[in-house]
């Protein structure tokens, strides 16, 4: 069944694409099995990006802003896929995936062939999100989607780690998000290749953008662009779309990003280890210690 879907997806069938992504998500299909049929992921050209993460606090307007950016890119003829990550309830495992509500571009008959939008829940038991998102991204790229945008809430660890997997990270901010000290605090902004201050129609947006710029200028290295947008009124969106398309890597947070990627890779090794179940059982029984478990999983330093 999956083999058929792979072949059909390769010839452009979207239902088959959707089913393959589910199979990847459910771990019933491995990435290498998929790529054997679909073909390799195209190489990343120098100074260009294939994957872009859009992140920021809840309610700053990420989804609406992304809708505007997608419209702008689709009008230029680009084929863009979106993986919108929303949290699953840690209690029930369920999720309400609401990002699609904001998307008008998926309803535009002229443009919606060039946009694929998929909601992804962080899930409880099936492993870490970054792993799934990374594999889904590769499937999309190998199928000829030119850009993959990962939209995440910039809140939890796994969401930040998701963002760190992307070639570029855009942080969306909004006005009234605190004073200048907030902009100085360590965190998500440090990873940004660009910052969009959305809701620029509201008072305080320009001031907040200035504070972020100042904060960047105090640091070392090149300063990422900081632009004002209003997703509500559509102002600054086309300009931001152009800036993002040509966005160089800021180079400021190379180490921090590799740290996140390394942790994601590490986590993946653990979660995909065939010994995991057995080791968890032994840990629960108390018959081994954590450091022994780590050693038995393998691939670690003091082996």
């Amino acid at each position, binding site marked *: 069944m999956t083999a058929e879907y792979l072949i059909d997806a390769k010839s452009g069938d*979207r*239902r088959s694409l*959707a*089913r393959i*992504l*589910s199979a990847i998500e*459910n771990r019933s299909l491995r990435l290498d099995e998929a790529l054997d049929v679909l073909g390799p992921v195209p190489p990343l050209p120098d100074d260009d990006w294939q994957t872009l993460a859009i992140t920021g606090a809840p309610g700053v307007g990420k989804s609406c802003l992304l809708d505007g950016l997608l419209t702008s890119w689709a009008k230029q003829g680009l084929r863009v896929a979106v993986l919108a990550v929303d949290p*699953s*309830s840690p209690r*029930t*495992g*369920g*999720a*309400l*995936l*609401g990002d*699609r*509500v904001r998307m008008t571009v*998926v*309803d535009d008959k002229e443009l*919606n062939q060039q946009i*694929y*939008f*998929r*909601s992804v*829940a962080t*899930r409880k038991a*099936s492993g870490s999100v970054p792993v799934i998102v990374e594999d889904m991204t590769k499937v999309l790229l190998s199928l000829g989607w030119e850009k993959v945008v990962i939209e995440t809430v910039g809140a939890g660890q796994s969401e930040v780690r998701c963002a760190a997997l992307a070639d570029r990270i855009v942080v969306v901010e909004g006005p009234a998000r605190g004073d200048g000290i907030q902009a100085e605090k360590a965190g998500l902004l440090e990873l940004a290749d660009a910052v969009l201050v959305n809701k620029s129609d509201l008072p305080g947006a320009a001031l907040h953008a200035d504070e972020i710029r100042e904060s960047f200028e105090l640091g070392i290295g090149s300063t990422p662009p900081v632009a004002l947008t209003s997703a509500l009124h559509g102002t600054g969106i086309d300009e931001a779309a152009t800036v993002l398309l040509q966005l160089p890597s800021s180079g400021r947070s190379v180490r921090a990003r590799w740290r996140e990627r390394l942790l994601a890779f590490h986590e993946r090794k653990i979660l995909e280890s065939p010994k995991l179940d057995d080791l968890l059982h032994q840990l629960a029984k108390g018959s081994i210690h954590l450091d022994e478990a780590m050693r038995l999983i393998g691939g670690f330093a003091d082996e």
Partner: protein
Amino acid sequence: MSEPWRIVVAKPGLDGHDRGAKVVARALRDAGNEVIYTGLRRSAQQIVDTVRDEDARFLGLSSLSGAHQHLFPKVCDLLKHEGLNDVIVFGGGIIPVDDRDALFACGIRAIFGPGTPTTEILQFIEEAVQVENSGVGEGSDWYWTSSA
């Protein structure tokens, strides 16, 4: 449950009331499913595109405007036309009992009226996946007999 079901909850047509759809979406979420809510005033094509791209196993349609006899069959026809025959469709809202047989004939597997306990919708979900050929275009004549 091994993997959560992906369920699209949709509001077709010009109907501005979605309290019911949100209550159902919440109940489905709290039962451990992944629920994709479309928002208000969707066309049949928009709903089917969403079901396709999100790879949903279930589609729940809500209508309180009286246009269900027009809109629900249209969504079902489009699903079949796009080859999404295995999607299980259920509906709810203000849908008179006399109207329901025609909707079941389109492949809709349950119609829930006002006052239906949300637990009944969850029971339907559990049972519908067990029934053979319960997808909208798979030809079963099974449907859920709802309490309201």
